[in-house]
């Protein structure tokens, strides 16, 4: 027998260096926008000016600001109404599409999910085009049918749009919960003599309560963070919420009051932190309450009987009115000079909106910038997230629990707060490598924001890879990094594709962070949409929105068809 070759471990410290490097990078990325916001909130002048004094006067000034109380009330009312609408529709849809013999339930369920793929900004424009004061359906309703007209420029009006857009979130959580519930619980109720609707009311819905509660908190959080709908519909009517307050104070104002903005942002951060903490608490409880059965039994579908076709027609109408019409009419508007029920469509069809869009360098540049930023942030983000997941779940790194916590923290940072934070960070720090006013600051900010989402796509998959596989590599002589790069990363490929797609779409839709940190030359679709909107260029808005819808649609379809990647749910 020959003498065994000694194990190959070229640099003993390499593993640790990489692990510390990833941890430091992650902490820097996550704290970069947060520290400046917190700091700015307790000093008496703009943080790029010399000679700060610490003060708490920003807080008292904020509370004394005219309309502050009303703004807080508007925000809470809007979020609460949105959550209520989203939960009602989402839960109802989950039961209807998931648990009954409704005709075409699968296709309707797919269509129902559409709003989740689109940005709230594009949806707002869609609703405006259809249900706005001169919207297509508004005109049909008012002028041809003489019906009473609705007003979207109110808090309930905004909440309907937001609620319909957020309903898919409640739907997904309820579906997941319903498919895991033990069907024998319902069967037991049926056997004991309960009818269809009694069983639904007494057994099925109560079993969904944990999922409803969790998605309610999630939707409430999203509604608080929502900027697009209050900006498009609230602002013109003088309805101010927290996000639009931050927007007008931080960006739109002629002389921005940084102390006030930062203080409001810091308060906002605290509220969202609390809600995210509540989500994790509820999720822990969900696992305790939901009755799991190991068997892959399919629950029996409820028979709708005579209600079957009535519900089918109502559902199709709902999906037509809330999903197909806003998106479809917006797309039509992109390809026409004007839209009106009085004018035949064929007479107004044109490509002039796109010609106008691409003849203007700002707008064509914003499309290319969006593609570039989304691709680069998607790639860098996927790489970083994969490395974080490897350190958190597959290393003996001493601070891996802390790293896990930090990596998930951006969940608690609203998009507008991240935008303000990066804006301050760039303003306060010396211009590092000349990234100020370039697309690179957008890449950094987007990467930071979507670490938790990407982590959610990568970590479960990594945990499914048997630990024996990397242990085997270690024993045969590979150090941690070699085991990761040669064994684990290749095995994680499907999850990394899903992560990239998710990041690409999220970045491509982004507007709330970008509006605070973009500059001439680094416009993206989100910022240009707002710019065009303010100028009243409805045709160009529709054309730009159409580009976003088509790119996202292609991404979702390709990812699902080729890689079998399931985004969301």
């Amino acid at each position, binding site marked *: *027998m*020959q*003498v*065994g*070759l*000694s*194990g*190959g*471990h070229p640099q003993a410290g390499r593993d640790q260096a990489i692990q510390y490097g990833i941890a430091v990078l992650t902490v820097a990325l996550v704290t970069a926008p947060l520290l400046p916001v917190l700091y700015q909130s307790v000093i008496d002048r703009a943080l790029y000016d010399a000679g700060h004094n610490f003060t708490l006067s920003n807080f008292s000034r904020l509370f004394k600001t005219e309309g502050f109380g009303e703004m807080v009330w508007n925000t809470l009312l809007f979020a609460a109404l949105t959550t209520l609408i989203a939960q009602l529709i989402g839960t109802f849809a989950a039961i209807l599409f998931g648990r009954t013999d409704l005709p075409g339930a699968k296709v309707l369920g797919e269509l129902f999910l559409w709003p989740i793929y689109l940005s709230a900004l594009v949806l707002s424009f869609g609703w405006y085009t259809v249900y706005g004061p001169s919207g297509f359906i508004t005109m049909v309703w008012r002028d041809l049918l003489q019906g009473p007209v609705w007003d979207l420029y109110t808090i309930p009006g905004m909440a309907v749009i937001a609620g319909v857009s957020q309903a898919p979130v409640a739907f997904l959580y309820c579906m997941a919960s319903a498919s895991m519930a033990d069907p024998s619980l319902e069967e037991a109720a049926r056997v004991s003599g309960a009818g269809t609707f009694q069983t639904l009311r007494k057994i099925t819905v109560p079993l969904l309560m944990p999922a409803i509660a969790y998605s309610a908190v999630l939707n409430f959080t999203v509604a608080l963070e929502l900027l697009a709908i209050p900006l498009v519909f609230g602002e013109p009517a003088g309805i101010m919420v927290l996000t639009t307050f931050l927007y007008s104070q931080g960006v739109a104002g002629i002389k921005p009051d940084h102390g006030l903005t930062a203080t409001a942002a810091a308060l906002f951060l605290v509220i969202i932190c609390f809600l995210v903490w509540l989500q994790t608490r509820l999720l822990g409880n969900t696992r305790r309450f939901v009755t799991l059965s190991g068997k892959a039994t399919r629950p029996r579908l409820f028979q709708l009987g005579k209600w079957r076709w009535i519900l089918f027609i109502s559902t199709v109408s709902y999906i037509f009115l809330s999903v197909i019409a806003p998106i479809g009419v917006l797309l039509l508007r992109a390809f026409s000079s004007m839209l009106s029920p009085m004018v035949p469509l064929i007479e107004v069809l044109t490509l002039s909106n796109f010609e106008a869009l691409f003849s203007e360098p700002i707008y064509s540049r914003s499309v290319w910038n969006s593609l570039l930023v989304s691709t680069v942030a998607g790639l860098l983000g996927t790489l970083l997230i994969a490395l974080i997941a490897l350190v958190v779940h597959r290393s003996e790194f001493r601070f891996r629990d802390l790293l896990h916590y930090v990596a998930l923290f951006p969940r608690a940072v609203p998009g507008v707060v991240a935008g303000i934070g990066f804006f301050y960070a760039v303003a306060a720090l010396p211009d590092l490598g000349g990234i100020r006013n370039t697309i690179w600051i957008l890449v950094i900010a987007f990467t930071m924001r979507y670490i938790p989402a990407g982590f959610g796509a990568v970590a479960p998959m990594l945990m499914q890879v*048997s630990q*024996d*596989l990397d*242990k*085997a*590599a*270690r*024993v*045969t*002589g*590979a*150090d941690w990094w*070699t085991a990761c790069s*040669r*064994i684990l990363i*290749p*095995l994680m490929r499907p999850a990394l594709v899903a992560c990239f797609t998710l990041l690409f779409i999220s970045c491509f839709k982004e507007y709330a962070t970008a509006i605070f940190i973009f500059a001439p030359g680094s416009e993206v679709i989100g910022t240009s949409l707002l710019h065009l909107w303010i100028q009243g260029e409805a045709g160009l808005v529709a054309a730009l929105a159409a580009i976003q819808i088509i790119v996202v649609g292609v991404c979702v379809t390709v990812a699902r068809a080729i890689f079998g990647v399931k985004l969301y749910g």
Partner: protein
Amino acid sequence: MAELVIEGLTRRFAEVLAVNQLSLQVSNGEFITLLGPSGCGKSTTLASIAGLDRPEEGLIRLGDKVFFDSTNDVYLPPEARSCGLVFQSYALWPHMTVKANVEFPLILRSVTSLEMKRRVYEVLELVEMTAFIDRYPHQLSGGQQQRVALARTLVYQPDILLLDEPLSNLDAKLRDRARLWLADLRTKLGLTTIYVTHDQIEALALSDRIVLMQNGEIAQAGPPQEIYERPSSPFVADFLGTTNFIHAKVISKDGTGTTTFEVGSMQPLTLKTSHSLTPGSTAILALRPEHIRIASPHNHAQSAGRFRAVIKGHAYVGGKWQVTAAIGSDVIRLDSGTQITGDEIDLIVEEHIVTVFPGTKSFETV
């Protein structure tokens, strides 16, 4: 190669002591089996040797190379130990061919391509897998995967071979064949080997020495035959092979070691034992089924080792009958070549083969 020394190894998981002050020496070329029920600490011990698990206390060294030493805070990472470990799951990398799997350890050691080719071929020849060199793991059967896993481990000539239940994922027939093949390979290689299993037949057939573990401690260690025939505790007797336990009371003992016990309902049973037993004390008798014979009902000449039992049931199990019988409240099992009739039966045990455990304290069975 050198001897493996483990001293005072202790590993806690929360409040549970998985391994408790375990000490063991394995000499060069020795084949040792860690045997025991699940949760006895055998896999934790193996993981500690490989470096995949870090114990709290103790010392592990292979020759002069200290793997782990809690007093001097030495902990060698797994990649620096040059151990060969075959996983229960085989842990073949699914995205690599057989060739790439076996080459991987050599690439890490910067072996020249010519040498690599030779050694990969040599080791695959050894495990009879050269025909499958370009296959992916999922295209192989369980037995073939196991051979590739072994080849991947042997290709870098580890200082010690660790096998973690390598046969447990194979079906019964394949397992028998793989065991014979492994026994053959073991003679060819002469590598110091630690084999973890809960299967007593594997342990008995392959090992130089069996280390039977219970609750993180060594219950008994010794050559297979010694452990099987002279178990040191009811637990060992029960875990290795089938054992019938009979509660007994010592009646009398003479100078030659012939002892009379009382079993069942006032029934005398005479055996030979080297234990010093005082009359009136209690004991447990351990009887292997294969050592119990059915006595001819008409021959009452032999009285040593003879006792009577009540038949509780019998079942034909192919070629023989399995009989369940009761002595008082103790139920025993034995085999019979012929069908048994009647309510009671006279049995004889070889008097010197019965193992006697003084004291009637209840014992843990497996």
